[in-house]
């Protein structure tokens, strides 16, 4: 039998995908919208890991003429990322059943 490697997703990654479900966001916007659940120091490490997993994709904001500094990066959830999120939410709900409900 061929072993299927299931994708893993952390609570923080779920949170990021939840935020991105409503639309594209910058890293700082994700931090603000999460109300402290995501930290600005770790959000990009999380986003970087998610991009390597294929859960999110990003593009650089085009710099305005004459602007200096590094361009900011805008993030978007991929269809695959949202599918994994939905699957894990279903799993979590299923496992959260009380024993009496599960027996029924």
């Amino acid at each position, binding site marked *: 039998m061929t072993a299927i490697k299931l994708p893993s997703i952390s609570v923080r990654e779920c949170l990021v995908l939840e935020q991105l479900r409503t639309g594209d966001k*910058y*890293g700082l916007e994700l931090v603000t919208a999460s109300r402290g659940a995501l930290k*600005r*120091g770790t959000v*990009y490490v999380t986003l970087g890991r998610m*991009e390597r997993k294929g859960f999110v994709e990003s593009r650089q904001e085009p710099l305005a003429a004459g602007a200096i500094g*590094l361009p*900011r990066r805008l993030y978007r959830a991929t269809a695959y990322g949202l599918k994994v999120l939905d699957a894990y939410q279903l799993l979590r709900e299923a496992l959260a059943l009380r024993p009496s409900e599960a027996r029924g």
Partner: protein
Amino acid sequence: MIGDQLARIARRVVRDDSYGLMVAPAVADLQFESRAGWFSTLRGYLGVWRALCGAIAIELAADARRTLSNDGARLATTQTTVMVGTLFGLQATLFAANFWHEWRLNPVLMLLIAPSILGSVLPVGAFTSAAVLSDKPYAHRTVILASIVAAVLIFLFIDQGVTRFNQQFREADAAAGGPGTIAPGSRELPLADLYARGTRQDRIDLHSRLAICASTIGWAWLGLSLTRIRRRWLVAVGVVAYAGYIAAYSAVPIMAITLFRGRLPIWSAWGAVAVLFIAAYLAQRLARRRLPAHA
């Protein structure tokens, strides 16, 4: 602009893809928010540092995983393990042989010296491993990481293994008496005891042992860099120097040469290591410099 210096440092420390995905966006945020005041700037700086630390941690974990999963690296790890295991085994065998009087012959006793010498020569094994692995896309980080682990293992070996087994052997040998007896007074002490006694000679011994371990990293770095140099004659010089070092260490009493004035300076312990690091640095400057992306 604010954060540019930090971005330049980060670019040299982590790979391009990690920089682009994790550090550059944090720097962009820092620059974007710096207009909002000093508090936002401070938070932005902290954010960049945490992103940089996170990127380094992820890269190190990935390199360590590759080291353990790759066939070539596994081979190098096995070779090192076998080498260290053999040294321990040799010490243990000789110690056991001491209680078997038929085996108490001078050649066997002479073999006892071998681990002490090999403990000093062992770091150059990092050179070979580095050269073997150099064509792998993750060689640089893997070899440096492995050489740091090897340095710690060699330190434990020299400090605990050799001193303990040699001393037990000497005491047992002296108690048994007979030809080839090694005086228990000529002790090999672990670092803690050397530090506590604190005589000049003890300090030299202490520095020598630390220098031997540190040289592992220098050898690995030199091995990696030499294989990336395109000038053949430079590579040849490096290889000849490497072979010469092993030959000299085995054949010539180097410590006796440095003792020619009767007083061994402490810098002599680190002198050779310093030369090694300078050579590795120069070779690195001449080599093609760029960390490849993750395979």
